[in-house]
């Protein structure tokens, strides 16, 4: 980034002797715009289509398949439709806050992209407190959601907003605690530093470094789902109870902001987990070409993140929603204590094997494969049991 600004000034594109801060501001603005428009928005859009298709398949349906090839452009059609809709502000609503809330939610969705480690050199800012920054800015959502719930002047919205606040604030704790084991092992908070602490092979990932990190990864994933208001923790917008929760009174593009942030956040969740536990962009060194290497790393990173995004869709299609008291029970009675155990356990582990235990990596990886095999066996069992060819209606 610094070199880019230097080069730009030297090239004279901004005239002679431009103020350095101004150039930096413009560069940062343009770069963020590019990241936002080229990656974040399309991702949020496409992921809605993917989610609907995934859901549809799980539910024996076809899903949106009319707009574009296999309905791929459905998200654009939806986007155009929703933007064209009237932006209604209820009479009794607190108009200023009501209008402001979606921006805050969008802000919480856009800021994390600054430290997103796409590849070894593709990162906007490799902050030395990267992961801390990430958790801090994603928690901004709560302000926007609470604001939306309050400003709507609708009791259902308010309940949704308050639920969201309680939920996000509570789940920050297990999420934060689950980052600790990794930080303990690498000794850094920088995203790139954490990724460099792992290898490309699964047995070198922190996920399989020791039993504690494995549990920590799961807790972090669940907590992140809770923070992103995803099933089974989608209480703030529990559609069967609160209609649409904090977003009930929103319409048009303001509503689009909420849903975009929700789906965009999936990528951020995936990125955090990938960075911390799944080896990030690590790819075997196959070529000395820096560009090719970066592309390969970008692909690796994206595949891992997208798998996690897919997993969250899959979970959403499988699980029911918990109740607010059970949500709190799960957080404070299960996730938080276990996270503490993880932290202490990892600390002891690191004290015994400061450079990690290679054998443990292989054992854990083998265990994971065994688990996967059992899973596939169960899937085949259910496939065999069902006689889905019994279609009574001759039209199908």
């Amino acid at each position, binding site marked *: 980034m610094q070199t880019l600004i230097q080069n730009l000034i030297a090239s004279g594109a901004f005239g002679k002797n431009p103020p350095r801060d101004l150039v930096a501001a413009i560069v940062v603005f343009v770069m963020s715009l590019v990241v936002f428009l080229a990656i974040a928005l399309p991702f949020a859009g496409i992921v809605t289509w993917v989610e609907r298709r995934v859901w549809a398949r799980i539910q*024996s349906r076809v899903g949106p398949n009319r707009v574009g090839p296999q309905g791929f452009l459905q998200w654009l059609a939806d986007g155009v439709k929703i933007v064209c809709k009237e932006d209604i502000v209820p009479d009794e609503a607190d108009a200023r806050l009501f209008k402001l809330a979606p921006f805050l939610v969008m802000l919480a969705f856009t800021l994390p992209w600054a430290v997103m480690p796409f590849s070894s050199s593709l990162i906007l800012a490799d902050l030395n407190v990267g992961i801390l920054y990430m958790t801090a800015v994603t928690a901004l959502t709560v302000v926007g959601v609470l604001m939306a719930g309050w400003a709507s002047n609708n009791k259902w919205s308010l309940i949704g907003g308050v639920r969201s606040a309680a939920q996000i604030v509570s789940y920050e704790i297990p999420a934060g605690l689950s980052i600790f084991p990794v930080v303990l092992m690498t000794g850094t908070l920088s995203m790139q530093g954490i990724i460099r602490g792992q290898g490309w092979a699964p047995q070198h990932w922190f996920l399989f470094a020791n039993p504690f990190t494995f549990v920590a990864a799961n807790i972090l994933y669940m907590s992140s789902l809770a923070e992103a208001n995803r099933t089974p923790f989608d209480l703030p917008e529990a559609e069967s109870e609160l209609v649409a929760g904090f977003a009930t009174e929103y319409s048009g593009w303001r509503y689009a902001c909420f849903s975009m942030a929700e789906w965009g956040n999936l990528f951020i969740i995936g990125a955090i987990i990938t960075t911390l536990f799944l080896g990030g962009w690590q790819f075997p060194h196959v070529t000395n070409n820096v560009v090719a290497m970066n592309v390969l790393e970008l692909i690796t990173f994206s595949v891992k993140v997208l798998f996690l995004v897919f997993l969250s869709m899959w979970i959403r299609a499988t699980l029911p929603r918990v109740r607010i008291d059970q949500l709190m029970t799960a957080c404070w009675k299960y996730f938080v204590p276990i996270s503490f155990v993880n932290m202490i356990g990892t600390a002891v582990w690191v004290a015994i094997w400061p450079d990690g235990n290679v054998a443990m990596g292989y054992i854990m990886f083998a265990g994971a494969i065994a688990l996967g095999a059992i899973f596939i066996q169960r899937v085949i069992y259910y496939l065999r049991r069902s006689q889905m060819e019994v279609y009574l209606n001759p039209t199908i």
Partner: protein
Amino acid sequence: MSTLRTEEMTLNMGPQHPSTHGVLRFVVRADGEVMREAIPDVGYLHRSIEKIAEKVGYRGFMPYTDRVDYVCAMFTNQGWGMVCEKLAGIEVPKRGEYCRVIAAEFNRIASHLLSVGAMAMDIGAMTPFAHVIREREMINDLIEELCGARLTFNYMRIGGVAWDLPPGWREKALKYLDHFDPILEEYNALISWNKIYIERLANVGVITPADAINYNLVGPNLRACGIKWDIRKDIPYSVYPEFEFEVPVGNGQWGKLGDSMDRYVVRIREMAESSKILRQALEKIPPGAVLAKVVRNFKPPAGECQIRVESGRGDMGWYLVSDGTGYPWRVHVRTGSFAAMGIIQKLSAGLMIADLVTLIASLDVIAPEIDR
């Protein structure tokens, strides 16, 4: 430590709300997430079906009975047919009774499927609902072939049923049942035994057996309280005595006896029992006519009687007063949902708002059946 000052708020849930299963309204007085009371307000779907009966005559009322409970219209058909037959002393041919039982049991499965699927959806799991709707569609396809309609069947007549089983239908139905049993198991693995699901339902809305009887709860809601009572077994009608089946009752396995989970599990088990009855009925069905000879201008003798049918939502009471003319003097339907709705106010105290949704779903309340 001073107590936290809280303010009670009044929430208006319905008449248009995603989880009210039709058009119901609740006035919820809540303190945060915890309800003080939920006062049901019904009548949004009142179509004065009892008054219509007085105007359209005995035969013409049959299609209207479909609208009393559109989720399991076979039972309302059957109830109306039975009450007229009892008053006029008409004997239904054996095959007609078998056809009734087959259609009704298929309808019971369909009704329970919708109930458990809607319950899963109210708890936030979308997939089971789509799966049960798929199964329900298959049953609807079967019933469509049988009587030409998917929802408002108008299949039964006074004195039997309108149409015999079409050719090849029996094999199709048996084939469907072979498909249905594993699907039920799969459904259980997906949702029923899910820990989150159990946690949401167990110990919620506990009804004691005494309360259940006093509030006149019927059907699965009553059985979930541990009372082994099924009209099909205890006041046998039609050809039910010829079949072997169990009456599932709640046992409080997951929490307290008579909680939402018990009601849910009773419905799941009843589907398996219905499947058993269907297999027997499809095997045993005798030849013969399906409809007794009834004069076209049907006029039962003056008098009154009441019958009870075990519908998908439990004991449905039909009370008919005839004055000997071609039009009923008075028809009254006592439905399961109406009684179930009456107990919600009592149960709601101290529950959470999210629990109200599951409570309504677990009592399997269908709005048109309340309001008629």
